[in-house]
């Protein structure tokens, strides 16, 4: 078994270097495909982060009438907090609400006229975050029931539902695109490796004639494919490592509002995806290519 492994790996190594041009072509194809795959994974994870950020924004807002005693507001906050659908309840008094408003204006670069009036037109509010943006339960009814305390409940249910169906669609579309690209990549890589195998069909024929078992013919080629995959993965990761900084900055300036982070998690995921895909594509591609010559 050990001898078989040593033989296969030695033959794979020889095969790779003695057909350097073909091996190089296969490695470059592999690198390009893996880059495409990695780019898609980065894009999708960025989109996912964006979608999650938007979904987090979903909340129910209830505006409080001016001059309501603090005790009644506290009671309402406690009542809403007790509901099973609710994850977080924040109370913003008039000063805080005004400060938030001014902050938003400043961020959007619009002139702030709120100090001109000398009064505070912004009502205090209760902000309710839901555990699941789909499930409102009795939150809105509870808030509306507080007569005299709540002036208005910002009903965003249908807006949110529309938003959620859009984000859901985008997620599904992302997975479908990833699958399609994956299949395309598989076909291209298999074809490239097949070229390298076809160039050596005579060698396979001779191996068969001198009594090599299928395993002895197949595994050197699979290891060679794996070698191509690993090399492609290494080059791809090298390029990604070099490109990570400028891309990260580019994305940051493009959509500054959405905090997409190229964090350690994504890097680990990418290494896993690229190396795994390289290994699998190379190995499977070679196995499929050699199969043609073994079935007789």
């Amino acid at each position, binding site marked *: 078994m050990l001898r078989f492994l040593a*033989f296969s790996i030695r033959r794979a190594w020889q095969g790779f270097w003695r057909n350097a041009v073909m091996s190089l072509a296969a490695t470059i194809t592999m690198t390009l495909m893996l880059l495409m795959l990695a780019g898609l994974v980065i894009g999708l994870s960025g989109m996912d982060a964006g979608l999650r950020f938007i979904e987090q924004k979903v909340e129910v807002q209830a505006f409080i009438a001016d001059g309501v005693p603090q005790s009644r507001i506290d009671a309402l906050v406690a009542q809403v907090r007790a509901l099973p659908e609710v994850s977080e309840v924040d109370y913003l008094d008039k000063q805080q609400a005004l400060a938030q408003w001014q902050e938003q204006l400043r961020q959007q670069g619009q002139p702030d006229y709120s100090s001109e009036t000398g009064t505070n037109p912004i009502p205090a509010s209760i902000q309710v975050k839901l555990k699941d943006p789909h499930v409102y339960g009795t939150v809105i009814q509870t808030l509306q029931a507080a007569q005299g305390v709540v002036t208005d409940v910002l009903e965003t249910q249908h807006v949110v539902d529309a938003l959620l169906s859009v984000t859901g669609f985008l997620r599904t579309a992302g997975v479908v695109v990833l699958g399609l690209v994956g299949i395309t990549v598989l076909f291209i890589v298999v074809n490239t490796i097949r070229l390298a195998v076809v160039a050596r069909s005579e060698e396979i024929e001779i191996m068969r004639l*001198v*009594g*090599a078992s299928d395993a*002895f013919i197949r595994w050197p080629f699979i290891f060679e494919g794996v070698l191509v995959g690993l090399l492609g993965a290494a080059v791809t990761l090298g390029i990604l490592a070099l490109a990570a900084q400028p891309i990260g900055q580019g994305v940051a300036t493009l959509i500054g509002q959405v905090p997409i982070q190229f964090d350690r998690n994504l890097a680990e995921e990418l290494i896993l995806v690229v190396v795994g895909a390289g290994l699998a594509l190379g190995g499977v591609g070679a196995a499929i290519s050699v199969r043609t010559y073994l079935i*007789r």
Partner: protein
Amino acid sequence: MTTSTRRIAGALAAATVSHPEPDAVEGTSAVVGGLPEPRRISIALEDVSKVYPNGRRALADVDLAVPDGDFVFLVGPSGAGKTTLIKLLIRDEVATSGTVFVAGRDVSRLSRREVPKLRRRIGIVFQDYRLLPNKSVRENVAFALEVTGTPGRQIRPAVERVLALVGLTAQGDQLPTQLSGGEQQRTAIARALVHEPRVIIADEPTGNLDPLISWEIIQLLLRINELGTTVLMATHNAEVVTALRRRVVALEDGRVVRDEVGGYHREY
């Protein structure tokens, strides 16, 4: 199948085929415990026909028995079925009907996994040598053992032994492209011989060589035969066949038309 049942199958195959040359059936019979053991059969074809998918009938009702240690020429015009017969023997093709025994195995019943094992019991030599161009002579010969998982310490002495036998010790480190045609064919013969097969099957081994070199190759095959290996050689080389007066099997239109000791052409 165990070895002993295979022997029985081989012997049965031999018994059912009427052999035209009594001398060849006797000869080297081993005597064990006073009882003569019948000589084993290297190659036996019974009622073999081969029809290709395109409808061409390459072989029809071929019967042939080659005992261990025989030297047989397979002759006939192009398209007579020589190559098809050889392809059946090495299981490159499967007979449409009939049975093919090679080295004690029913070739037509071999599973895919068993085909390599059959090929290790036979040595194959082709007209176009079929050497790996980017491997040296030594590596080409060693290759036949490497792919069967033989340990390295056994490979080296075996390779040197056959290289000495074919007279290529000095050229061991050269690539096939640096060799003459005769030397390339001797490399191929060394490769066919290195795993000590019972049978050597040669398909026009002298087809690409000039007459002098052809004689060298034939002499080499004769010496290998003297060492105990059965040799079946398909050839067009009338001069060699006629001069050597060995057993000749002639094919025409896929049928055996002659099977006797003699020359290339029918002699009356």
